[in-house]
């Protein structure tokens, strides 16, 4: 029983990281931009938030938890948005290939993050010595009214923030005028353009806001899961790719991404709770989220519902005067 509860809790924590990443990517892909730079952007968001908090806590005599939290959030969002901006400028303005740009951004993001992470480790006096206890504590605090409520106690506010963001994103896409315009941009930019929608603006905004949301996943991973330290073990990249898979799993629907992310989180950790696994058979279990994604792809293709397909112009550049 405790095992199941602990798996559930791990699933919620990991699911939240994936959910942030996937929500950002859904917004981005709805504008027709296939940003494979999600892992890189999550890295950027994570390291920038950590660096901001580290800088604040080493400068202030008695760090304020709320201020540290806000600084971490602001730095994370700014860095991730910058990543989205690089991607947007290359693919939208310069019309570079989206796949290549995205993959490059992933490599760039992880490189930058591990470089600065290593530097911070050195400045702090060794691996695992970075201490942003106050800020990290603020991220990990259980909401006051949920203290001791079973599995929910021990979960920080970001878990609920992700769910709220998913609900907002779903409402935005399906019930608002701007959401309709955004969907049209991703499906058929020429049509949206002829209808008076500024395709470039929507693509830029969706990609940058999407990157900011994805970046929060990296921040949550750093502040909550590894408790405000830095490890260049590729953990963020793993979750980033899972986020990309989750977008497909959720069929580009934010609400489906909520339960999907927890399922992915649970599948990710399942090997830990199954007794008698060797190191190699563990790896088989780690494949589960991807296998589930493949199964979903197969089922979706067999059902052939147009609404379950990716945005029609996903991955394609748009140029109005193209003949």
């Amino acid at each position, binding site marked *: 029983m405790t095992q199941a509860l602990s798996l559930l809790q791990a699933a919620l924590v990991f699911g939240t990281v994936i959910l942030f990443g996937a929500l950002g990517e859904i917004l981005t892909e709805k504008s027709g931009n296939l940003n494979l730079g999600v892992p890189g952007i999550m890295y950027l968001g994570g390291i920038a938030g950590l660096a901001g908090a580290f800088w604040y806590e080493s400068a202030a005599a008695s760090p304020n938890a709320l201020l540290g939290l806000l600084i971490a959030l602001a730095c994370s969002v700014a860095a991730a948005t910058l990543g989205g901006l690089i991607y947007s400028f290359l693919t939208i303005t310069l019309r570079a290939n989206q796949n290549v740009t995205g993959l490059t951004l992933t490599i760039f993001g992880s490189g930058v993050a591990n470089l600065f992470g290593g530097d911070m480790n050195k400045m702090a006096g060794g691996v695992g010595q970075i201490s942003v206890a106050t800020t990290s504590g603020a991220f990990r605090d259980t909401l006051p009214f949920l203290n001791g409520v079973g599995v929910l106690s021990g979960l920080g506010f970001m878990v609920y923030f992700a769910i709220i963001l998913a609900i907002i994103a779903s409402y935005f896409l399906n*019930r*608002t*005028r*701007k959401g*309709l*315009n955004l*969907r*049209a941009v991703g*499906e*058929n930019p*020429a*049509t*949206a*353009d*002829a*209808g*008076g*929608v*500024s395709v470039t603006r929507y693509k830029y905004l969706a990609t940058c806001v999407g990157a900011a949301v994805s970046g929060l996943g990296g921040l949550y991973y750093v502040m909550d899961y590894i408790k405000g330290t830095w490890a260049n073990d590729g953990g963020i990249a793993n979750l980033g790719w899972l986020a990309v898979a989750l977008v497909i799993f959720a069929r580009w629907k934010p609400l489906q991404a909520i339960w999907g992310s927890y399922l992915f989180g649970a599948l990710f950790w399942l090997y830990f709770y199954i007794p008698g696994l060797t190191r190699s058979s563990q790896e088989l279990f780690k494949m589960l989220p991807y296998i589930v994604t493949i199964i979903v792809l197969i089922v979706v293709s067999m059902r*052939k519902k*147009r*609404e379950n*397909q990716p945005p*029609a112009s996903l991955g394609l550049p748009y140029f*109005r*005067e193209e*003949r």
Partner: protein
Amino acid sequence: MEGSVPAIRMRDITKTFGPTVANDRVKLDIYRGEILALLGENGSGKTTLMNMLSGIYFPDAGQIFVEDKEVSIRSPKDAYDLGIGMIHQHFKLVDVLTAAENIILGMTGKGRLDMKAVDDKIREICSLYGFDVDPKQKIYDMSVSQKQTVEIVKVLYRGAEILILDEPTAVLTPQETDKLFSVLRNMRNDGKAIVIITHKLHEVEEISDRVVVLRRGQNVGDVPTKETNAAEMTNMMVGRSVSLNINRPEPKNQKPRLVVENLTVKDIDGVTKLSDVSFTANSGEILGIAGISGCGQRELLEAIAGLQCVESGSVAYINPETEAKIELIGKDPCAISSMGVALSFVPEDRLGMGLVGNMDLTDNMMLRSYRCGNSPFADRKSPNSLAKRVVCELEVNTPGVSTPVRKLSGGNVQKVLVGREISSAPSVLMTAYAVRGLDINSSYTIYDLINRQKEQGVAVIFVGEDLDVLLELCDRILVLCGGKVSGIVDGRSADKRDVGMMMTKLGGEAGK
């Protein structure tokens, strides 16, 4: 219309694309309560000119006045704000959205969507002009004519006073065209200004009040429709006299060449596309195939060419020399041609299946010939001279044979494709929509080419969409309706209305 203020005045409009001048100092006036036909050959700059009114392109030079005020139309949104709405030839609709969602796409207003109010307003517009649109229907569930209606409602919803329609009838049946024209007349009588871009002269005569002719990007004529006639308009378009009658030589020496029996084809989803189709195509004859688009024309041609799996039935080819019957079903396209069976195929999707857009003319010619010869290196000389010959004979408007095909205008792409197919000297020539999007002059070039093939004893199967052309060109016409043969009629005696009925209903109207 003399004396009244034009809704739009365009003055000295010039637009160039690289070295090509699309519009050269064009002057155009558009009046309210008038239907203006904009006539011209392919590449004469009609669509480009109108795209500058709808904000898709921006003119290099010149002025546009709306209601006597000079305006700068930088985006489609600017155009809508000025009351200008354009219905493009290729519909600008998002397939996975509903009619209502497409109609309000891009409009400003309250952030939260109130679809009920939108639906109500759409129904109001529909009842005003006599449209039939279900606001909740998804676009991918709609027929071509329904999609067009959504496009028209879309611009009316935005309060457009000036409507531009780019070749609206190209995809409609005669009955649907009549319906469209009556709606256009309603709108004209309501005081709206309407511009219709077309190549079909009889439509110009039927619907328009005034006609403006463009040739090579210049305005070469502006006359009331009543004071002109088809021959004069053609002369203006082409710049010289052209005979308007399609030549139809009597078929000579007819022999069965292709015998299709009980052909049934299902698509990948198991939907029946062709059911029990039987006919014989004779040498020295043009067999027309009529039908609403998507009624199995494509599947029929593809099944004969070996590109489509066949459920049941047979396609027998009769060798002209030995008179031996050869079954084509079950053979792949390569085997079919290597047996000496020559099937030339002009697919309806020009750039999708016929030609490779990013390759130049020579390379596209090579797609047919690269297997020839024993050398490990491909022969580029003969395709190159073939490309030059096609460019010269069919008057393809291109900077050279090394230009990527996608940069040519639709009509020129079509000429390249038809030219290549005919060059292989086939004994059965199948064409689908060979003149789609082509202007009069190029269409006649194509008809001549096809007639020449017929006189040489080729069995021609001509899938067309313009009934007038089918009735003038073809010796016999097979009418398809929902994948079934609705009837085979004689091209010389058939009546257009009857064929139109057969297209929508098996066997035409009951009892007729």
